[in-house]
């Protein structure tokens, strides 16, 4: 049990982060807090990819003469890092669109609280 916890503490941390983000998206009434939850969820998934790419004792994935290329185990996996660069860009763009929508909502209703919005929509 303890071994499992110590060996995989990063995954437990990420699981907690995912749940916190998801909870924020679903349960928070304020729209900006929902977005904070959404960002936490996206970040936890990006970190999950990066943790998966990690190798104990692996070097940065840049060619090093002392390490050579014979053993790929000496470098961490570079592909998830490049993929997650794209994912970060996507997350930022989504956040930008979401903020544009929030500005439009605030202009129309003068509030960002979900309950109050429902009330004012009637």
């Amino acid at each position: 049990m303890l071994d499992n916890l110590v060996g995989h503490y990063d995954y437990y941390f990420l699981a907690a982060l995912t749940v916190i983000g998801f909870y924020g998206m679903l349960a928070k009434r304020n729209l900006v807090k929902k977005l904070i939850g959404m960002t936490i969820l996206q970040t936890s998934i990006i970190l999950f990819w990066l943790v998966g790419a990690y190798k104990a004792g692996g070097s940065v994935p840049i060619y090093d003469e002392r390490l050579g290329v014979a053993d790929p185990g000496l470098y961490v996996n570079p592909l998830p890092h490049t993929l997650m660069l794209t994912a970060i860009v996507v997350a930022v763009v989504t956040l930008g669109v979401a903020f544009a929508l929030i500005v439009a909502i605030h202009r129309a209703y003068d509030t960002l609280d979900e309950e109050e919005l429902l009330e004012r929509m009637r």
Partner: protein
Amino acid sequence: MIIANLPALIPLTYLVAALLIPLAGAWRPPLAPALALAGASAGVVLALAGLVQVAASGPLSYEMGGWPPPGGIEFVLDGLSAFVVAVVAVVGLATLAHGRCTARAQTPGRVVPFLSASMIFLTGLTGMVLTGDLFNLYVFLEISSLAAYALLAVGSRQAPLSTFRYLVMGTAGASFYLFGLAFLYLETGTLNMADMGRILTLVDDRSPVIMGLTFMGVGMALKMALFPLHGWLPDAYTDASSASTSLVAPLGTKVAAYVLLRLFFFVLEPEYARGLPLVTAVGYLGIAGIVWGSVMAILQPELKRMLAYSSVSQVGYIAAGIGLASPLGLIAAVLHILNHAFMKACLFLVAGNLRSRRGHSDIPWFDQSLRRAMPWSMAAFAAAALSMIGIPPLAGFFSKWYLALAALEQANWMLLAALVASSLLNAVYFFRVLERMYLLPAPEGAGAPPAPIEEGEVPASMLVPTLVLAGGLLALGLGNAWLVTHLIRPMLPAGL
């Protein structure tokens, strides 16, 4: 020469059009709609050329940047993707031809951004369909979703809020897809679809694979509005402007359904997929959605909202076909992607026609005067409505027929009962509208609807796309045997 590059050319055409439209709009505003139509028409020509090419001489593959797969990103035009791309291109052209008129009337001053965002939306959808790389699919998914958010946020006062909800749900869906993909990537070390399918059969430890597939499935179910994850759809489609709804509604959910189909039966070996409870679960959620969407559609007093709930029900047919995991079930699912795209586009175009002439689409205000004033629009509505119910010579009947055959083959009585019930419920909610349009005399005095904005039928530029789609329903219905034998059966994976 050009044929070999088709898989990459189709999304690229839309992307180039999306970039040129704002430039043209800034220079000579009337040029923008013409450019959008030219881009969409070029897309149709390329997509149909691809369909013919694949039917004649097999799948095409394009290596992005000259990097060979599985390391590089591959764009694949095979039977299924060529078919779905053709559906997206044709329906996209018809709704854009209509949408440029409704956008000019309902959202003046925003025609150029509308056209540009539509083109980005189509870039994303065609890219999702054509790519042979699972991470690339995520990127195109987000491109199409972001364009859809921009399109749907313009409309009534509530539109930004409804779109915000869609954005939160949609981003959760895309994030789940990415999360699930991480499991598959860490297990197989590849992102290429063909390569992953091959490696997955060799993986002994199935639990991470199942976990990944489940997350990807849930993500796509959110995007395709599969019951009970459909909460975002009715509001988002109702509050948006007519032009945006008629473009996003027929295509957005269908392409997400295509991704599920591709993932379950083309990335995985069909034998592998058939053993997964996940696939069966998708089928049962589809059945629940078929009934729930139809019941909710009956309760809606507004035409666009009714059509939105009916979309939830129609997506259920596709999911049910996927869930059966048999050749007939897949034929039904693929055929319904085509039929429903045509039917829903036609119905939403008529709703747009109504709004542009009457200023509303509230069913309690419909009466006989509509038929007198707009005979052709109403005829198109009647044709699409009958097709939705499933009256034989029209296209909608045949996808239901194949689904019923597939259900009988596996003795799935629950699906058969849901099919019959939903057809009857469809009849209830469409005949309710048709009765008012064709038979109810116009009320006098206090109960009368607001005066029309403009008398008479809509102009030809809006009527032609509506009628083309309605005529297409008849043509697809009559030609369905040919479609199934020549296009859909050959695309099914071996070993199904």
